[in-house]
Structures are given as C-alpha cells and as structure tokens.
C-alpha cells in the first residue's frame, strides 16, 4: 500500500495503490473512469490509451506508482462541460463508432497525433492510429473523422 498524488482530468487527486496495480486499474477501479477500456492487457490493442504528461501511453503497460505526480487525461477529460472535443464530435458526425470499444483509445490517439501534427495526411493519420485495433469499422471512417477534426480545429483557430 502506498499513497500517490496525481492530476487526473485537471483535478488533483490522491489515491491509495497496491504495488502491483497498473495505471489502468486505478483509472477504472480507483477513479471509476470506465471510458478507458481493457482489451488485451498487454500493450497490443490500444483500447486503454490515455495521455500521461501529454504523451500517449497504454495504461495497461504503466504501473500505478509510475504515475506519481503526473498528469493523466482520459476520455472523460476531453471537451468542456457539455461541449465535446472536436475529435469526439467528428467521430459522431462521420459514423466512426460502431461497437465503441476502441473509440476512447482511438480518440485519444488522434488527440495525441493532432497535438503533434495538426495537419496530418491520410497516411500520417493511419500511422498515428495504427497502435489502436478496431474490429468493426475497417478504420476508413475513423481516418475520415480525424481528417474532419483537423480541418475543423484549423478553421476555429
């Protein structure tokens, strides 16, 4: 047992963790932020993607104690109040969500990509989300959604 401090979705929080707990466990079980999914538990599917200090990580591959004093953004931390993040809105508008299991991870992956590269090509988008598996969509509408989000963000800036 150990107590750590971290900032999650903009809020300072404190939590007791077990030594063998992963970041994914405290996100889902500790903070009840169940938008982050566990697909494989071994860093292969990207369903657990979150932003850790602004960098995209698989929360199943990070130990909870490594998140001490860090800043974590999960899917629940995107957007403001009732307004969705432009990426979330673009996913809805293009029909990029089917079962939705990959979606939180995909959106965060796209977020990380657009923070680094606000005007990606189709191929760069494909590469950017290639660590996130999707069984339903064939990725086409997801790529379209990221393109649309990038366009809308550029227009509002």
């Amino acid at each position: 047992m150990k107590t750590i401090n971290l900032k999650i979705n903009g809020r300072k929080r404190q939590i007791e963790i077990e030594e063998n707990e992963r970041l994914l466990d405290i996100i889902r079980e500790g903070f009840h932020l169940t938008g982050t999914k566990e697909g494989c538990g071994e860093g292969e599917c990207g369903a657990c993607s979150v932003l850790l200090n602004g960098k995209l990580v698989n929360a199943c591959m990070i130990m909870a104690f490594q998140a001490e004093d860090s800043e974590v953004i999960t899917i629940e931390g995107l957007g403001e109040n009732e307004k969705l993040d432009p990426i979330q809105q673009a996913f809805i508008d293009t029909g990029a969500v089917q079962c939705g299991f990959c979606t939180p991870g995909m959106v965060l992956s796209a977020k990380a990509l657009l923070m680094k590269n606000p005007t990606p090509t189709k191929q760069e988008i494909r590469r950017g989300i290639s660590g996130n598996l999707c069984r339903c969509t064939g990725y086409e509408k997801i790529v379209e959604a990221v393109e649309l989000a990038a366009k809308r963000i550029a227009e509002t800036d």
Partner: protein
Amino acid sequence: MKKTGKGIGIMFYGTGYGNGYPDISRAKAKIDTDGRFTISSGACEVGQGAKTSLAQIPAEILGILTKEVIFDHEDTKTTLDAGTCAASRQTYNTGNAMKMASESLKRILESKAREILNLSEEEPLVFDNHEVIVEGDPSKRISFKQIANTADVGDLEVVEIFQAVTTKMNEETGEGNPYWPYTFGACGVEVVVDTETGTLDISKAILVQDVGRAVNPKLIEGQMDGGFAMAQGYALLEDLNIVKGEIKHHNFTKYLIPTALDAVEVKKIIVEDPESSAPFGAKGIGEPVMIPVAPAILNAIYDAVGVRITEIPVTPEKLLKAIKEVG
C-alpha cells in the same frame, strides 16, 4: 518481382436462423399520456446500428422524427424477446415486427381520431408532428396527446409478432425453402504479389452489396468497410493455430488482425432492390459484406502468380512455398 492480378468473388446469403428453426421477433408500440411514442423490442445494439436504423422505421410510419422515437431496446426487463443479434436478422425480422406494431398503432390512432372528430371512414388522414390531420382540411386535427387523454389505459398499446418464413430443407433432394430473404453481393480486388517475399498488397478493392433498401447508407458503408477489413484479416492474417485443442495464437502478438495501415480504401456500391417481404424493402447485411472478399483475394492471387491457394490465411510463407512449387 512484383506481379499484379485481379479477382472477383460473388455470394448469396440466407438471412436468419433458417432451415425450419423458428425465427421470431416481437415489438410493442405505444403512446403515453404525454403523447410520446415508445417502441420497445429486445433487439440489441452491438455496434451494427440497430438503435439508429430500426428507430427510423416507426418514425417513417407515424410521421415523426427519428430522434423523437423513444426506442427501448435490449433490456430484458422491459422489452419483449426479439431473438439474437445474429444471422444478420435484426433489420429484417425485428424491423418487420416494429413496422407491424407501428402500423397497428397507427390504425388505432386513426380510428380514435375519426371517433373524436366525427369523421367518416372515407376521409383521408395524414400523420405529421404527433398529430392526425384531415388531408385537405387541416382545421380538423387532433394530437396524439389529446387522443391519449380520451383513451383508456392500454388502448394505445399494441404488440406484434413477426415470424420469418423458413422450412426445413430436404437433405436427400436439397429441396425446400430454408431461408428468406436472400442477400447478394460481389467483390473485386487487385493484388500485387512480391514473388520474392510472398507478401501481397491489395492495390484496389470494390465491394458491391445488395441491401434491399438502404435504411441508413452511412451505417451500411461502415459495415461494408468493416466487413472488408475483417475478411482481409481472415484471408491473409488471422489464424488461431489450434494444436490438439489448444489455441496457440491467443493474443494479438500472434493472432494478427488488420491495423489502420493494412486497411485499404474500398470503393463501395450499395444496390437497392427492395425486398417485398421486408420493412420498406430493407435487408440485413452484417455478415454478407464479409463473404465474397476472401474468394476474390484468392482468385486475384491465382491471376497474379498462377497458384491456387486452398487454405487460409495466405501467409507470406505459404504463398512463397506455393509459388516455388509451381516454379
């Protein structure tokens, strides 16, 4: 050396459980005292879009917006059984049950409206924005809410059951009517095979799907893309590798599925040929979209390098070995 080849695959698919197995969907439609319309049915939303596309059916019948339809689905406590989300059957089967329930409710609303407004049987009525209106004389109108307030409890509530036509096939003669309806599709691909490494790229892809009637074209395109990618994985990558009953490829490091980098842009053609027994002609396409793809890929490989592959997935090792064998 790189060799290019083209191939096609065609398919037909029988919707539903088939072969005489009872295939039943139920739906309940009602108007509550606030005049709001609710339809409930046990169909599950699993990402295929049932929640969206099925709700369009009662909206069309009752002249209200899809977003105004309160669709209570999958909760077994509050809904009636509509069978499984399997066999590509929900659009057709549950769609039919929901259409029947909505039409029955519409007839009840019509007869109540005639009674309250003192209208003869001949006067034509239209439904618009939660109101029943006399066509050509819009001063005569009554809202769903007003009708609900004069009706007795349970009057504006109706359950309908749809059962698909299916008979057991005669195993000796192959005769019978095991499925109804059928769905048709075709796929064409162009592949580029690297004869030194056995790897292949799909350079062009086209998928054509008969849908009866496209209730929601965007959802159909999404399913077509998804079906293609799944079939691409099935044909080229995915192998459980079962040895003595044990799955050896039990994680994504070994069981590979296409990523965004593997996925190809598929040209999609939706063919609309309304099916007379279907709700507004619409048929399900969940599974059909996947079926013709692997055969098209195998045919394209044959066209490119002259080898007939009979076992999938066509891994680079397998393809290289086959190419070497034919010399």
